[in-house]
């Protein structure tokens, strides 16, 4: 190519790129939220002289230009792809992909956080559950299995040791040995309900509940399920299927939502298309829920202190109890639980959290 032609070519292409994207950004309608990133996007900031002279207006405009850039997901993908494949970086914002399985490096272990979690469990047991059977179980995050491929992970052994050392009057149920890497969704942080029946059985057995034979479930499949890591990965990976297990018992079970003071269903497939598809299980994040089992008349109850992982396993634990109460102390303070719940019944107590919650226990109120 001749020099002069090249110069014209460069000038035209550069100008077209800049002006083209500029016009496209201005013309394209703004989006309210990003499904792939599962977050609300910044909209054009409102003008005021106060925000203009304080600098807030331009600061907000910066965020707006990033959030509303045309083909944002494509460009994020370009960056992620280049990091993995051109610059041979092992992770992108701590996200790494092994055989289509998206994982996040969670490390290092925050020992103080683990001790704080143990103390919180002790405090709750002491306040409400003295003399009752209480258990602690920790769900390993995916990184526990996948980091073995040369990635960084927290010291899980130390976490278990610390918990066992600091919990009082409670038995530790080891889930690590019950689980394997295939029990998780490929694109999401959570475990896949379809694959955790053995974990549910193990938990019931550890808590001394009779688990009479196999319970039959009907599988219902929702597709495509783009998990929370899907958006963070920013590159194209195969979506998961979200399978939920149901049967007559679960169809009949009554779920009471204390926050909305209304009855809901165990599964809410209509929420699959929402911001977080995992909300299909017990409507997602809820401070207090009870699930009543009309077929179990033993009067035995389970109080399950849980995070989002609890939403999908709770239905599988229902067969062992007359009632399962799910308490999420990320959204309700543990000091006021007796205002809503009756702790005088025949109850088992299970504190079941995934390793990320234990490692960030400041969120447990």
């Amino acid at each position: 190519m001749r020099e002069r032609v090249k110069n014209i070519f460069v000038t035209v292409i550069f100008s077209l790129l800049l002006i083209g994207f500029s016009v496209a950004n201005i013309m394209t309608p703004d989006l309210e939220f990003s499904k792939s990133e599962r977050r609300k996007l910044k909209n054009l900031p409102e003008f005021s002289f106060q925000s203009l002279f304080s600098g807030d207006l331009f600061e907000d405009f910066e965020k707006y230009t990033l959030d509303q850039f045309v083909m944002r997901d494509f460009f994020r993908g370009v960056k992620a792809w280049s990091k993995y494949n051109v610059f041979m970086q092992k992770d992108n914002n701590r996200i790494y992909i092994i055989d289509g399985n998206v994982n996040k490096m969670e490390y290092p272990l925050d020992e103080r956080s683990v001790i704080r979690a143990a103390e919180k469990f002790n405090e709750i047991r002491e306040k409400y559950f003295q003399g009752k059977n209480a258990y602690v179980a920790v769900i390993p995050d995916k990184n526990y299995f996948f980091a073995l491929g040369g990635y960084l992970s927290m010291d899980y052994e130390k976490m278990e040791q610390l918990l066992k050392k600091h919990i009082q009057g409670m038995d530790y149920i080891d889930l690590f040995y019950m689980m394997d890497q295939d029990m998780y969704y490929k694109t999401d942080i959570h475990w896949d309900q379809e694959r955790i029946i053995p974990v549910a059985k193990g938990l019931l057995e550890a808590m001394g509940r009779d688990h009479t034979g196999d319970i039959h479930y009907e599988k219902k499949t929702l597709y495509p399920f783009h998990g929370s890591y899907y958006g963070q990965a920013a590159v194209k990976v195969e979506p998961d299927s979200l399978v939920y297990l149901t049967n007559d018992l679960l169809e009949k079970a009554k779920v009471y939502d204390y926050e909305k003071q209304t009855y809901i269903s165990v599964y809410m497939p209509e929420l699959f298309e929402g911001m977080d598809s995992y909300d299909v299980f017990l409507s997602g994040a809820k401070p207090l829920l009870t699930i009543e089992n009309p077929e179990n008349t033993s009067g035995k109850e389970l109080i399950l202190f849980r995070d989002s992982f609890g939403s999908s396993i709770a239905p599988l634990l229902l067969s062992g109890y007359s009632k399962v109460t799910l308490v999420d102390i990320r959204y309700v303070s543990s000091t006021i639980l007796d205002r809503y719940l009756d702790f005088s019944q025949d109850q088992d107590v299970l504190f079941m959290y995934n390793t990320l919650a234990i490692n960030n226990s400041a969120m447990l109120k």
Partner: protein
Amino acid sequence: MLFSSISFLYYFLPAVLILYFIVPKNRKNTILLIASLFFYFYGEPKYVVLMILSSVSGYLHGLWIEKAKVSGNSKLPLASSIVIGFSGLLFFKYTDFFIQNTNWLFNTNIPLLRLALPIGISFYTFQILSYTIDVYRGEAKVQKNLFDFMTYVTLFPQLIAGPIVRYTTVEAELAERSHSFKLFAEGVNRFVIGLSKKVILANTLGELGKIFADSGQKTVLFYWIMSISFMLQVYFDFSGYSDMAIGLGKIFGFQFLENFNYPFIAKSVSEFWRRWHMSLGTWFRDYVYIPMGGNRGSTWKWLRNVAVVWFLTGFWHGAQWNFIIWGLYFACFLVLEKFWLNDFFKKLPSLFRRMYMFFVLTISFVIFNADRLGDGIQNLKGMFGLLKVPFTGPETMYYLRSYGLMLIIAFIGATPLAAKGVAWIKERKHGKSVMNFVEPVFHGLMLLLITGYLVDGSFNPFLYFRF
């Protein structure tokens, strides 16, 4: 506003380009002035007035000096311009430093002012002073058009992080400059190279630095990786900005002087400073070192001049002791080289000279990077195994593997190897034609990749913004 931001690339720059190229010649400076004021206002709404007042002061002092020359008494307006010029810089940048040290020395409790530093004040103050001094010396013609003078001071490509463009460099171009596809294309290429240096290399190395700072598993090797990556980050950050400034200058018809010339291939500290932040080095040489006598006179006088210049060079970078020590550290090596090291290294293979420079520079940037002197000492101790940390560990090895290629690219990018490779290809048969196609395609792809990096929100502010 950052050059490496979506708002600059896809809102500000296209709008300015369109306006600039559609208005007639005699309105181009007006467009640049308005754009530059908006550019500054966007990042520093409160201090735009200070910058305008500084420019007007520089302009009026230029006229005063010119007028006073007739009566032979132009020293007074020159002194006035220097005092007023530096008073703004001293007040905003150094007041708290002096208060802190006064409190420490005399056990007083004078409250700090905690003023935000106006962006680019060190750069535009030096530019304005270069103008008034050059007018005084008769090396520059006085500028009678206030708006043209303000266009020079506020010119957005170099406004906030240099290079320090002297008035004499752009004097003629302010009045009359040409635009062409050739200049525009050269400017685009240079701009994209600078943007790539900043966004791809400097920011990624900055990420590595942040990982190190947050890490609970520090090791000797990690301290070294951190120090080397910080040194390279500063280089790519600042030289990237200078490339962008030079590129934008070309697009708008200005020819700024080079600010970096592969400083890491230098074989001595004096050569390093002839290749690093050249506009600052030459400013101190021409306006401080030579007027003080330079290397003329006794050895003691020369030592004094070197100490003063390097003290000021360090202090210019920031109102902290580590910057002063950083400057004086280089002064020590300049003296050592002159009296001993240059002769010593002549007898040894050049590998030793390279190793010497590597250590001197790496340690210098550890000092540069320290927020407090104690931090710098801690990092140096870590590098030399004086802290109770292992030599390496899983986290260190992971990040070495993960950032290894990026570090290699950064090392190579800091040398003229790539430029020489391109020049070699162009000398081959059809090489030029091939490169004429490959270069713009490569730069276009880089622009898209950079957009990806920016959209993902992973950018740092320029390190040199606050200097």
